[in-house]
């Protein structure tokens, strides 16, 4: 293992050269072995054929010698064969397996039983005219071709040596040329890291191989990366400029309160101290975090300005704050609200005057055309009462709301009270009320105002619903400041054309409606700093009444 590690730590060009060297050695060694083996195999075949021919051409003589019991001549014949290069030993055994003559007479004496060995690789029967006289046994000299191999071996070794040197040199050159190109790539990568775009090297080489293709691809990639990085830097500068000049304070801070970035907005001077939030400002941030608020508006006491704070979670650790000075907006809004209030009073006065004027006309006829009788006085009294009701209805919601209530109220109780009050209407249409009330969510509102909101909305829903339908009443907390009261009916819905009109006083689609009910609801909700959302379509009308669930501080 240590040896392997040591070998692997060699330079690449040496490793490639060594690998080629091993390959050549293995290849050439295999060729040498094959040549040597072929020499042996062919040597054996040559030995076999030569011996067979020798025996065949001397067969008659041997048989004659056998018949004459001239074993000595047979021995001499075998000895002469054994003197040939390719025969080591020769013997003749009779048909019973006993030795007639053997060139190794000390081991194989005449008449002794012959024991065949693995070395006996040529066996030639001695037979004539169907008579079997025995068998020749020969042991070939498998190495007899060795001298012929030896004569070419030195030349082969020389050529192997030359081929090996050339292969090592070529391996070294090839790997060096590959590495040279890879080294340029490596240097370029470092230059990209250092953004030394002008010092990048481009490769001009004769080789048109895979490495060159890779190099060119990487060159293209480097150019693309260069463009991307430059573009990114440009964009970075561009957005940095925007962020720096935007009329907002932008802060990136970590969960522990450390500010990692903020732009140079003037607000930063009072909000940020030593890369942390001002202690008072930190309280607002913590409050937002606790209430899980994405945005809030505060009055920043150090500058006496209204600030709109928006909070965004960037990742697990970091948050972004955008802080805008909305004091100007607040002033404009207050002016707009005041203007709007004047216009409302104006519109309300005009409509009220018109309404009263319309009622005064018949009253004038009743009272000032002759002596009014009992009937006329009764009718005049009704008209006056109606005028009184209208004035009461108009003026009542406009009463200043007492925000100093000490106790929060539970909505559940008042829903039950209103439903009881409306029970005859509900029973008449067999309407099913489905309640989903979060009891632990209390709100701060006058009981009468809450009842008026519930009564008006539920009355409208019952009126809009057909028989056997459902009305859903839901109350839940939205955030730390607001709860949402939803009144959902399955009635015919409110035409989108009149959805804006229904907020106005005296607008009614009912035959005997005063047009004051919904107006009163909007008035109450807005006076409590709440707001209303309407979503209506045929078959489903949903009023969402957002009401404060926390005591107002101002």
């Amino acid at each position: 293992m240590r040896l392997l590690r040591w070998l692997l730590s060699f330079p690449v060009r040496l490793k490639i050269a060594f690998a080629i060297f091993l390959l050549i050695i293995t290849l050439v060694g295999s060729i040498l072995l094959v040549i040597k083996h072929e020499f042996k195999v062919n040597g054996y075949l040559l030995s076999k054929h030569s011996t067979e021919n020798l025996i065949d051409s001397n067969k008659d003589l041997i048989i004659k010698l056998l018949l004459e019991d001239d074993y000595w001549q047979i021995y001499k014949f075998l000895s002469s064969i054994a003197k040939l290069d390719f025969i080591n030993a020769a013997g003749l055994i009779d048909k019973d397996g006993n030795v007639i003559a053997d060139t190794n007479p000390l081991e194989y004496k005449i008449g002794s039983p012959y024991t065949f060995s693995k070395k006996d690789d040529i066996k030639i029967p001695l037979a004539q005219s169907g008579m079997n006289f025995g068998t020749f046994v020969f042991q070939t000299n498998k190495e007899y071709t060795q001298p012929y191999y030896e004569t070419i071996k030195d030349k082969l070794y020389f050529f192997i040596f030359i081929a090996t040197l050339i292969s090592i040199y070529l391996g070294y050159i090839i790997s060096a040329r590959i590495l040279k190109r890879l080294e340029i790539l490596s240097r370029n990568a470092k230059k990209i890291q250092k953004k030394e775009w002008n010092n990048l090297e481009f490769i001009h080489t004769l080789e048109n191989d895979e490495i060159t293709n890779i190099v060119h691809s990487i060159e293209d990639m480097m150019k693309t990366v260069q463009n991307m990085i430059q573009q990114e830097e440009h964009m970075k500068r561009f957005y940095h400029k925007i962020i720096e000049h935007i009329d907002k304070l932008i802060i990136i801070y970590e969960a522990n309160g450390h500010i990692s970035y903020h732009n140079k907005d003037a607000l930063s001077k009072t909000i940020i101290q030593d890369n942390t939030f001002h202690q008072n400002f930190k309280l607002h941030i913590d409050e937002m975090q606790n209430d899980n608020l994405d945005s809030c508006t505060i009055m920043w006491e150090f500058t006496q300005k209204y600030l709109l704070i928006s909070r965004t979670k960037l990742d697990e650790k970091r948050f972004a704050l955008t802080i805008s000075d909305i004091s100007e907006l607040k002033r404009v809004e207050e002016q707009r609200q005041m203007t709007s209030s004047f216009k409302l009073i104006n519109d309300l006065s005009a409509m009220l005057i018109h309404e009263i004027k319309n009622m005064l006309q018949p009253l004038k006829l009743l009272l000032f055309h002759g002596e009014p009788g009992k009937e006329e006085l009764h009718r005049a009294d009704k008209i006056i009462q109606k005028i009184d009701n209208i004035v009461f209805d108009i003026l009542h919601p406009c009463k200043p709301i007492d925000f100093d209530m000490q106790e929060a109220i539970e909505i559940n109780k008042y829903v039950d009270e209103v439903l009881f009050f409306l029970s005859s209407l509900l029973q008449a249409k067999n309407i099913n009320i489905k309640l989903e009330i979060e009891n632990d969510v209390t709100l701060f509102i006058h009981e009468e105002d809450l009842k008026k909101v519930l009564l008006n909305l539920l009355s409208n829903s019952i009126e809009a619903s057909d028989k056997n339908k459902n009305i859903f009443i839901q109350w839940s907390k939205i955030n730390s400041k607001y709860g949402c009261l939803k009144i959902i009916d399955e009635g015919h819905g409110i035409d989108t054309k009149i959805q804006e009109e229904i907020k106005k006083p005296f607008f009614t689609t009912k035959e005997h409606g005063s047009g004051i009910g919904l107006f009163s609801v909007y008035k109450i909700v807005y006076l409590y700093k709440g707001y209303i959302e309407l979503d209506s379509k045929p078959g489903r009308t949903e009023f969402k009444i957002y009401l404060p669930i926390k005591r107002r501080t101002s």
Partner: protein
Amino acid sequence: MDFNYKKNEFFGQILKYCGQILTTLVLLLIFSSKPLYAKEINFGITGVVLKEDLVNLIQWQKYLSAHTGLDINLKFMRTYSEMKNRFKEKQIDFAYVCGATYVDLMPTHNAELLVVPLFQSKPYYESLVITRKKNTYKRLDDFKNKLYAFSDPESNSGSLVPQYQLLKRGYAPNKFFSRIIYTYDHGESILAVLNGFVDGASVDSVVYASFLKDHKDAEEKLKIVERFGPYPITPIIINKSISKRIKQKLVSALLQMSQDKKGKLILKKMGIDGFVLPHNLSYAKIAKLKFILESAQ
């Protein structure tokens, strides 16, 4: 490979034929160069000499031709029996034979002694029982049921003497050995022992001495177990029908060999001192031995 081998064989055959043609041409040249008046004399050689030293035998032939003026041909006979037949048919004029062969040819086939060699200054030789030094055999009797080499069935030293000795010692010679190998040549009997092909052999002491001179390593590997003899040495015999003039020329040439420089060299290689006239040398001992053996069969 098969094709190559056949091709080689083909060229081998071509070379063989070329060799034969060349030999024929050389022989023709020799024949054409001989004097027209020369008479052809056939000199028979058997296994009594070391045939493997062919060059020395040819030198001997040339020596004799030169000193006799005769056209002497060497005729090699493989067996003593063949020699006898050829001699009887007068295809052989004079021959270097075994004493036993002379005994067979002498009475009825006009064979007479021409000269006899001197071995260690005597016209006698011995029959030697030899084996490899590693073997523990001490005497001829120890070779019972062993492989044993005889040179020629009719050889005195190489067959008859050991059989006679076995007979004398109470053995049936033809059943004593596990197998008798006939090499038809004393030199080859020695080789058979040397190679371990046989356990022992009976050989001519003259040939054995000559063999050891040429094969120094053999002396280290071989040993003499028993010696039998002395017996009258292997003689050179001549057909009585050959003219006295020729006979005289041959005797003269053979006797002078020990005096001649070239002759001495030839004799040395043959392991003998020279040739002498067979003054009253009797081969009766061999005749008696043969008679006893034949009677015992």
